[in-house]
């Protein structure tokens, strides 16, 4: 499904974040998985890892190549999507939903406001 949720915020590196309270759920976009092709591995940080906005916290590997995943926000990883270890192809199927990557406790709630809105992101990928 290629629906891009209106409530998510996006990055130019093709990640999204959905904020609920002080926690942000992070994933990669439909556009990102399409560019990558068949995804075969997902490397994620452990819970407890401190991540920084704009810095790589893991990688996604497709048949063709490896790509870094950049954290959209600063904070601490509080949960990871364990289903992706055995089912990386879920990232191709439902990147905006069931195939979220990590949940991050946000260090700075204001940071999210600096990210792209849906409208800006779609304009960016269509440019």
């Amino acid at each position: 499904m290629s629906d891009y949720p209106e409530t998510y915020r996006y990055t130019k590196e093709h990640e999204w974040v959905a904020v609920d309270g002080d926690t942000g759920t992070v994933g990669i976009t439909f556009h990102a998985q399409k560019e990558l092709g068949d995804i075969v591995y997902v490397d994620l940080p452990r819970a407890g890892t401190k991540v920084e906005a704009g810095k790589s916290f893991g990688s996604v590997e497709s048949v063709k190549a490896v790509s870094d995943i950049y954290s959209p926000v600063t904070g601490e990883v509080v949960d990871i999507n364990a289903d992706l270890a055995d089912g990386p192809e879920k990232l191709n199927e439902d990147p905006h939903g069931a195939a979220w990557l990590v949940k991050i406790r946000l260090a700075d709630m204001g940071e999210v406001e600096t990210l792209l809105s849906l409208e800006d992101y779609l304009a960016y990928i269509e440019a």
Partner: protein
Amino acid sequence: MSELLKTPLNAAHRALGARMVDFGGWDMPVQYTGIIDEHTAVRTAAGLFDVSHMGEIEVRGPQALELVNYVTTNDASKLAVGQVHYSGLMYETGCFVDDILVHKVSDAEYFLCVNASNQDKDFAHIEQWRREKGFDCEVVNRGPELAQIAVQGPKAIQILQKLTKTDLAAIKYYWFADGEVSRERARIARTGYTGEDGFEIYVAPEQAEARWRELLAAGEEFGLKPCGLGARNTLRLEAGMALYGHEIDASITPYEAGLGWIVKPAKGEFLGSDVLARQKAEGVKRKLIGFEMRGRGIGRDGYEIRVDGVAAGWVTSGGPSPTLGKNIGFGYLPVDKAVAGTAIEVVVRSQAVEAVAIPTPFYKRAK
């Protein structure tokens, strides 16, 4: 940045929704529906590939054989008219200018299929040695005058047979026939780069799009899928076939690459023959191995290989094998370590991951 080169099928790929990439200066489809999907189609049914970026060079004249045999490792004097063999185009160093297919058209004409990104270099190299040695023949770069379409897979023969009167069953593996496809001239070779049965068809560029569409239509009932360079790479990797710029290049000899079978010293002197004779007598210092990942990760081009915790070699190609469900690859190791069964580690993003050297090809089709 200079303009990307386009094959005559560029518009057809875009119309099919292919994802296009810059491949050595060519605007080529990397995938249509997905690499694994396309890969599986070739192993179980058939796939259609645009390989028009590949180069073609003709060597014609009374001493065509002498020139071909001088610049390549295999012995073209053993070819019958209509036969094809794999060979190495050599520097005087005994290393690869390119790996090529040599087709014998007649006693005075040989047709070479060469790698896309090497075609200008190959042509200049062959032409230089023609002049140097004064062989009575001409070398013609036919790349721009030919498109090439590959139909590969167990159903390839049935699909192509719908469009040609040439009896395809009569063409043996690594032989070719000049005939017609859809009543237009075509050179039909039973060759390929996938490890499956199949054909590579050479046609005039202005005919390419019509042949592509007809083949897609003819193959529909057999499950034929258009395939991009992504699947072409995973297929050749499983089949244990070398890719120039990875397993072989201007610093690698055929013996190191496990391609001693394409070197025929008995034919007499050729470029690099003295170096290769010495290397054969003394033995190689490093050798290409196949490996299979045991731990989680994929060894990719350029990654370090360790043996007993010490850096020992490097990966030349690697990726998932859709057919085998494993992660496989090729790499170079010192000859004493380049033995099937040797436990190795591949350094995947600063993590040493367990792997083991295994024999190649990784995949062999049932005959």
